[in-house]
């Protein structure tokens, strides 16, 4: 069953100076799924995200959370912001304190939780993001990736139902990216809905259930990653297709059926496995 956790209906958002960042945008994010939002620089990804937890208010159209139109009074916003956690593109804009422990405790305290509960959550978020041992280092001495993890920890400590991450993988080394991806998997198993913005087509192809492609503030494509990302118009807009999909298509032309049994390789590892299995099958025949 698919229920939308967040829905946008005909949303238009214009920045001062008549810059239309979102134009009659309609889409929905399914509960418990992973959605990747793609689009060229300036296509409106960050703006879209800032609408999702009420940081900006659209001039027209409406946004529904759990089937209800979101309100912009203080109480509703606080509730919404607990439910929809947001990790920003630039860690320096999120970390306000030179001590990451203090920073992580900020969100949970704003939820009005008692001190002991806050401390437990901070500790948990620190271990979860592999930051234990770094909590006594000043923020300005941390690396970009470490700061990024601190930001994520600060949002995880609020235990949101929906986690919105603006380019979470940018700037992480491959090992850290893999670890972070595992953390996201775990969160998803726990029921968290994940929404990320990314420029990495391959990552979106391998990672996302659903992709949303933006083109100058308008919706260009919305659907399963394996379908939407190989569409010609999406290729034309983004300037590339996922490499795994391209290679699989080329190999399929040679007659080697990498798509056997309806199985679609989505990552490099899966593609290699699929080719290996197939070629072995052919040679033993």
């Amino acid at each position, binding site marked *: 069953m698919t229920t939308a956790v967040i829905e946008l209906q005909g949303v238009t958002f214009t920045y001062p100076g008549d810059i239309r960042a979102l134009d009659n945008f309609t889409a929905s994010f399914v509960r418990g799924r992973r959605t990747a939002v793609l689009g060229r620089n300036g296509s409106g990804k960050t703006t879209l995200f800032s609408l999702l937890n009420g*940081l900006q208010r659209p001039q027209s159209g409406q946004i529904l959370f759990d089937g209800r139109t979101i309100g912009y009074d203080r109480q509703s916003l606080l509730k919404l912001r607990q439910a929809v956690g947001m990790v920003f593109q630039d860690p320096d804009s999120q970390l306000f304190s030179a001590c990451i422990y203090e920073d992580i405790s900020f969100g949970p305290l704003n939820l009005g939780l008692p001190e002991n509960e806050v401390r437990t959550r901070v500790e948990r978020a620190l271990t979860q993001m592999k930051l234990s041992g770094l909590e*006594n280092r000043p923020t300005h001495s941390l690396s970009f990736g470490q700061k990024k993890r601190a930001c994520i920890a600060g949002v995880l400590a609020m235990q949101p139902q929906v986690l919105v991450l603006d380019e979470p993988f940018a700037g992480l080394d491959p090992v850290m990216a893999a670890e972070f991806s595992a953390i996201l998997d775990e969160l998803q198993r726990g029921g968290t809905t994940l929404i990320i913005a990314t420029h990495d087509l391959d990552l979106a192809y391998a990672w996302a259930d659903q992709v949303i492609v933006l083109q100058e503030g308008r919706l260009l494509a919305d659907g399963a990653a394996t379908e939407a990302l190989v569409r010609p118009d999406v290729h034309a807009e983004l300037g590339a297709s996922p490499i795994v999909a391209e290679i699989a298509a080329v190999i399929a032309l040679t007659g080697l059926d990498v798509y056997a049994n309806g199985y679609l390789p989505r990552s490099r590892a899966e593609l290699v496995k699929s080719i290996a299995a197939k070629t072995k099958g052919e040679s033993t025949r």
Partner: protein
Amino acid sequence: MHIDTFAYSNRWRRVHPGEKAIFALCCLTAALLSRTVLIPLIIAALMAAMTIMGAGIPWRGYLRIAILPAAFLIWSCLALAVSFSGGELPLAHFPALQLDISFSRQGINQAELALARSLGATLSLLFLALTTPMTEIMGLLRSIGTPKLFIELMTITYRQIFIFLDMAGQIRAAQEARLGYASAGKAIRSMAGMAGNILLRTLTRARHNHQALLARGYGDELLFLSPRRNWSTPNLLAAGSAGIILIALALAIHS
């Protein structure tokens, strides 16, 4: 920003900030209360020794940081000692200007005492600054009930200083890489560009910061918890008793 680096990486980093603060403040009080030069000088020596040998701050680094306030102190105390109204030890005489420069006994005594006291006090504070990170000092101020607004401002300012330095450093490097400082004229133009750019970026940054705080449910108060630290009774006793003894000595010894 060496002070900061030392504060985060010295041997006494794990000691409860309160213990260090009690010790430093007791010594500061003792130095200021004393009526002889002896006690403050002992305190100054003690503080330097504790900072260098105890907390393991390299003496070169320590000297470099301490030299500035020390030079300032010496300079201002010199001014205290100098008299223009006929002291016992004449220095120079300008009949044309009707000016008479000399040292007076009393002035020298005063200057000596002021110098010793301020040196002791300065090195006490320097001890605290070099062994305790700013965030912990702020945590301490918070726990003794400093007004919230003040703490919030300190927290944010302290963080922003480094973001600002970083930003300026990046712009400067980018300009330099494109030969923006190759001549005096270019340097001025580059500096002006940098100043304008920093202003704009700071404004954008402030907006982003505010949004990020709002996204985590910021109301009208910046709420946060500092990491817990455990008091150590022996440390506390040592710091407290040493401090009290010094204060008592300072009060007891007259010239």
